[in-house]
């Protein structure tokens, strides 16, 4: 086995942890091959793995992100337009520290500074969709090719989505107060110690925010993994069923959950023979669109723009799901 493969298995996939938990399950008098033993092993292994990876990843990523506060991103994007600008906005969206609660201030801040809607939406779509931590978790649960493919298609949705929204000529479909707001200056620069403290605070804050979603997600994943027969799932969501992607998207859109909570569900579903495209479409729908974030967005944009945003993103996710299902034998 290559050195890279070994490191990937030990550090990202944590094969050793799965073996260790398996031994623990046996020590409890359960058989890991049985339903109950298997569920316990899946649950304990996934919870420990996700929280370990999450803490390490958020620390490292937050340190990088501390270089890209929204004020700096806005300055970098100012005065640009065209496809290159949309691409830059989508890339910066993956780097800027972000939670859905700050999307509205960022939307207002970008628009007030005169950034075109095309750029702002490329940023707003990519920010929750393609998250550095979730990419590494994808690599841990599936594989690097799948994680990289997810990044590429996520960026494509953001770039194309923003461009389409820009072409629709809806610059007037923004609530009136948005454009009159002042533009506050630059973000304060941080020292190295400040960045380390910021990264530490982010770990505490994000773990605190996402732990219920992770536990629920792993619980659902463990239930699917060991209790739901593969025939039932493949009959409903199997790769040969044309409706599997639309169903996954429709179920995912209203849901509000963190990507870290949806990953274990995705893992279990793929294990039961659900198409990779279906699972990715589900994850993207859950993270990119949710009822609470649409309700918040409604306060700053008018209905036609909200409908255009939802429609464009939904169409993008649908096509990605269908394309991935068509070519999934490249990855698995």
């Amino acid at each position: 086995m290559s050195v890279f493969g070994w490191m990937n298995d030990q550090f990202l996939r944590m094969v050793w942890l799965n073996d260790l938990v398996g031994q623990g399950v046996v020590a409890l008098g359960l058989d890991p091959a049985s339903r109950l033993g298997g569920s316990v092993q899946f649950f304990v292994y996934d919870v420990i793995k996700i929280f370990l990876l999450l803490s390490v990843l958020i620390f490292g990523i937050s340190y990088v992100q501390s270089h890209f506060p929204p004020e700096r991103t806005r300055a970098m994007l100012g005065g640009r337009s065209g496809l290159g600008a949309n691409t830059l906005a989508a890339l910066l969206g993956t780097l800027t520290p972000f939670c859905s609660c700050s999307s509205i201030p960022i939307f207002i801040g970008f628009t007030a500074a005169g950034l075109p809607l095309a750029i702002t939406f490329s940023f707003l779509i990519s920010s929750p969709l393609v998250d550095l931590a979730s990419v590494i978790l994808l690599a841990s649960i599936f594989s690097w090719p799948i994680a990289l493919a997810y990044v590429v298609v996520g960026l494509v949705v953001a770039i194309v989505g923003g461009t389409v929204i820009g072409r629709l000529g809806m610059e007037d479909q923004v609530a009136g107060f948005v454009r009159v707001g002042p533009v506050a200056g630059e973000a304060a620069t941080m020292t190295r110690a400040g960045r380390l403290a910021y990264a530490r605070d982010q770990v505490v804050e994000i773990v605190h925010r996402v732990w219920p979603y992770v536990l629920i997600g792993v619980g659902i994943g463990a239930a699917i993994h060991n209790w739901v027969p593969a025939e039932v799932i493949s009959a409903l969501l199997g790769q040969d069923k044309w409706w599997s992607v639309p169903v996954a998207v429709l179920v995912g859109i209203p849901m509000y959950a963190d990507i870290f909570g949806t990953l274990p569900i995705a893992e279990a579903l793929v294990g039961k023979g659900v198409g990779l495209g279906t699972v990715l479409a589900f994850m993207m729908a859950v993270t990119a669109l949710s009822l609470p974030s649409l309700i918040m967005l409604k306060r700053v944009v008018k209905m036609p723009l909200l409908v255009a945003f939802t429609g464009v993103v939904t169409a993008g996710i649908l096509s990605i799901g269908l394309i991935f299902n068509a070519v999934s034998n490249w990855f698995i």
Partner: protein
Amino acid sequence: MIIKILGSGCKKCVALAENAKAAALAAGREAEIVKVTDFVEIAAYGVMSTPGLVVDEKVVSTGKVLTAAEIGKLI
């Protein structure tokens, strides 16, 4: 003096409000601490990263929980 804390009620905003209160007390100044939680109002200050600190209608800090000592230098 009016000190406003901009933020949607997250933990950081609570911590910043506490520090602002302590800073005003240490400086021996009478300060009214106002929490601004509506994001429309927050955006009206041009602030994109919360928590933000506003002293007498001037934005002095964004996206950071300043310590009481740091706030002391700003008020």
